[in-house]
C-alpha cells in the first residue's frame, strides 16, 4: 500500500500561497492561527493532507486606511485589534467581540480572518471520531441523517464567529483573492445558510483584508450568550449598529447556519424588527442552551441592545 504523504508548506506571499494551492488541490487547507482547524483535525472532521500556513505572508498583517475604508489584514491576531487607535475609537464593539472569543492564549494565536471563517458547530458534529462513529455520522460528516433534528435534508450547524456579526453590522467588506483574481464583496454575501457548506468561497480563496467604512459614523452594541465568561463558543450573538443616517442593522449569530440580518431605521417599531429577526432564525437543539431559551434570548438581547443604543 502506498503511504499517504502529508505536507506542510509555508509561503511568504499570497501569490506563492495560490501556487501551492493549485498544486495540491483538492486536499489542502490554508491555515492561519489554526485554533479552529487543528481541533477539527484532531477530532477527525478535517482530513486534508496538505496544510498551507499563511503566517509567513506579512502583507496580510497590516492596518491601512484607503478610500474611506480601514483595511485590516486578515492575519491580524484577535488580541492585536485593541492596539489599533482607530478601532479603539470608532469600533470598540469589534474589540469587545474579539475579546469574547476563546481565551487570552488563543486570542494571541487566532486571527481575525480565521474567526470570520470559523467552522460551523453542532453538539453532534464537534465530537471525536469514535463518538460520531458510535452515534452514527451526521449530515455534516457524510452521514445521512441530522442527529439534532432527525431530518435528512438540512444541516443546522451554527455559525459561531464572534467578530463577524459585528463586522457585518458595520457594513464590512472583504477582499478575496483566488486563482480568478481579486474581488471586494460584502462580508455577509459569503454565507450560504447551508450548515454543511456554510460559505460560498472557492477552496483556494484567501480573505486578504477586512474593510471597515470609516466615514459613516455609527454605534454598535454587542452581546454574547454563553455559560462561562471565557473559552465558550456562543449560543447566541447579537450585534446591533445604529448609523448616523438613523439606519439600523441587526445581526444575529449562533442560532442559524448563517448570520441573520435585519435592517430598518430608528423609526421602525422595535418589536416588529425583533419579530422579523426571530422568525428568520432556524434554531434547533444543538448547542449548550435549549432551543426555546436561545429563541427567547434573541428577543431579550435585541430589546436591550435597541434600548441601550438609543440612550448611549
Amino acid at each position, binding site marked *: 500500500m502506498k503511504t499517504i504523504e502529508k505536507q506542510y508548506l509555508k509561503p511568504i506571499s499570497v501569490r506563492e500561497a495560490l501556487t501551492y494551492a493549485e498544486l495540491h488541490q483538492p486536499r489542502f487547507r490554508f491555515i492561519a492561527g489554526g485554533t479552529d482547524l487543528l481541533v477539527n483535525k484532531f477530532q477527525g472532521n478535517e482530513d486534508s493532507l496538505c496544510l498551507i500556513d499563511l503566517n509567513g505572508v506579512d502583507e496580510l498583517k497590516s492596518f491601512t486606511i484607503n478610500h474611506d475604508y480601514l483595511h485590516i489584514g486578515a492575519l491580524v491576531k484577535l488580541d492585536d485589534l485593541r492596539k489599533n487607535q482607530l478601532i479603539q475609537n470608532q469600533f470598540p464593539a469589534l474589540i469587545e467581540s474579539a475579546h469574547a472569543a476563546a481565551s487570552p492564549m488563543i486570542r494571541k494565536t487566532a486571527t481575525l480572518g480565521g474567526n470570520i471563517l470559523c467552522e460551523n458547530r453542532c453538539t453532534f458534529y464537534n465530537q471525536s471520531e469514535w463518538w460520531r462513529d458510535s452515534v452514527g455520522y451526521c449530515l455534516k460528516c457524510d452521514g445521512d441523517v441530522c442527529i439534532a433534528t432527525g431530518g435528512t435534508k438540512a444541516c443546522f450547524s451554527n455559525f459561531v464567529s464572534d467578530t463577524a456579526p459585528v463586522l457585518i453590522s458595520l457594513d464590512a467588506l472583504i477582499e478575496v483573492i483566488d486563482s480568478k483574481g481579486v474581488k471586494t464583496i460584502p462580508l455577509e454575501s459569503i454565507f450560504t445558510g447551508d450548515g454543511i457548506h456554510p460559505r460560498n468561497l472557492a477552496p483556494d480563496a484567501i480573505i486578504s483584508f477586512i474593510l471597515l467604512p470609516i466615514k459613516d459614523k455609527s454605534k454598535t452594541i454587542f452581546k454574547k450568550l454563553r455559560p462561562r465568561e471565557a*473559552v465558550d463558543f456562543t449560543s447566541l450573538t447579537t450585534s446591533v449598529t445604529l448609523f448616523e443616517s438613523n439606519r439600523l442593522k441587526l445581526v444575529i449569530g449562533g442560532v442559524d447556519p448563517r448570520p441573520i440580518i435585519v435592517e430598518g431605521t430608528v423609526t421602525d417599531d422595535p418589536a416588529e424588527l425583533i419579530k422579523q429577526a426571530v422568525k428568520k432564525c432556524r434554531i434547533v437543539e444543538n448547542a449548550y*442552551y435549549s432551543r426555546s431559551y436561545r429563541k427567547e434570548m434573541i428577543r*431579550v438581547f435585541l430589546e436591550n441592545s435597541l434600548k441601550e443604543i438609543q440612550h448611549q
Partner: protein
Amino acid sequence: MNIRLGATSDGILSVLDADIAIDGGAYGSFGVVTSYYNGVLLQAPYKLNNFGFKTYRVYTNKPQCGAMRGHGAVNSRFAVESLIDDISHQIKMDPVELRMKNFLDPHTLTVGQYRITSNGSRESLMKVSEQSDWKNKHGKLTLGHGLGVGCGFFISGSALPIIWNELPQSTVHLKLDFDGRVLITSGANDIGQGSDTMLAIIVSEVLGIGMDRLFVLAADTLLTPVDLGSYSSRVTFMAGNAAKHAAENLRREISEAVSKQKNVAPKELNFMNGQIFSHDKSLELTWDEAVTMVTANRGAVTVSGKYISPKLGGDFKGAGAGLSPSYSFGACVAEVKVDIQTGQVKLLNVWGAHDCGKALNPLSVEGQLEGSWHMGIGQALSEEMKYYNGLLVNNNFLDYKIPTSLDTPEIHTNIIETNDPEGPFGAKECGEGALHPVIPAIANAIYDAVGVRVTKLPIRAEDVLELIKLKEKGMVQA
C-alpha cells in the same frame, strides 16, 4: 430525592426523612457506599431526634459513577440546607440564627450514634456571617441581588475499610541511619494534596528536627507499607496518626539509648530544634550525638507506627455507615446577582469557613478549601454530564463547564482551628467537607435575590428564568 424536614415554630429541627434514588450507571462501582452516604451523612451537623432514610441505586445505560469530592452527601446536603432556608422563611427566623439553634455540641453523639468530638460549626458560621455582613445584607438587598448561607460536615476518614480486613488502616515505617537522616515510608498517595509534606511535618514535630533530615518515600508497593489509600479524607488523620506513632516509637528508642549512657530518665528528655536535652539542661546533645548513641553497635534503627480506628457506632443494622473517628464542619455564605431577564446567575463573593482541627500546613489547607469551594461552584452553576443514548456528550473541557477564573468570584477563606482529641496534633480533614455548604449557599442566595427555589443541579439560567416567570404569574412552585 424526596426529603422532608420538620421543625417546631420556634425553629427547633425535629425530624428528617429522606428518600433518595441514584442513577449510578451500568456497573456497581462505589454504589453501595455512595447510596448510604447520601442518607446517613444528613444526621449532622444539626441535632435531630427523629431520622430515617431509604435509598436506591438504579442501574442504567450510562458509565458507572464513583466518588467525587464530598462523596454522596453533596446533593442531599443541598436539599437539606435548602429546606432549612425554606423553614426559616416560613417561620420568619434568620437562617443563621436557626442553624445556630440546632447545631450539635462538641463531644456528643448523633441520633445514629456518630461520635462527634471537636466541632467548629458555630465558630465557622459566626465567622462567615460576620465577614459577609449578613445581618445588614440578607433580605435587605435590591431585587436580583442576594445572600445565602449553608452549612455542612464530613467524615475525617472512614472508620471501616470497604474490604474487610485485620490490617491497620495506615502503617508508617521510619528508618534512622547513622548519618542522622530519617526515611519515612508510607503507602499514602500524594495526589497533589500534600500528604508527603504532612508526614514530614508530623515526624519533624515529634523528633524536633528540621525537614532537611527527613525523606519521604510514598506509595511504592514494592517498598512501602500498606495504606488503604487517598480517599474519604482519611490521610492526614490516619497516615498522619501512624506517622506520629512511628515517630514516637523512634523517639523512645533514642531516649532509651541516651538514658542508658547518660543516666537520665527517658521521660526527662526533650526533643527540640535539633537537640535532645533534659528538663534542667544538665544534659544537652545535638541530634547527631544522640543518633550516634542509638546506632552504635546496632546499625540503623527501624520502627513502625500504625493507626487503627477505635470501635465506634451503635449495634443496629446500618450503624456502620458513615462512621469516622472524627468529623469536620463548615459554613459558607454566597453573594449572587441574578439577571431577571435572562436568569443568568453571577456569583460575586463566597465567604467560607472550615473546621479542620489543627491546620498542620495552613497554606495547603487554604488550597484544599479554595479547591473545594471552586469545585462546588462548578457543581452548583455549570458542571453537568450530558448524555445522548448513553454516550457522554460533553466529554472534554470545552463542553464540560468548569468555571474559569473569570467565573470564580472573590473567595474569602477562613481556617477555623479546633483541637481534635484524636487527630494528629488535633488535625482533621480539610479536603472534601468544605465543599458541602457552598452549593446550598448559592441556591439560597438566589432565593434571597429573586425569591425562587431551585431544586435541581446545576442551577441553569433557563430554569431560573422559568421559575421567575412562574412566580410573576403567581403560580405556586411545584
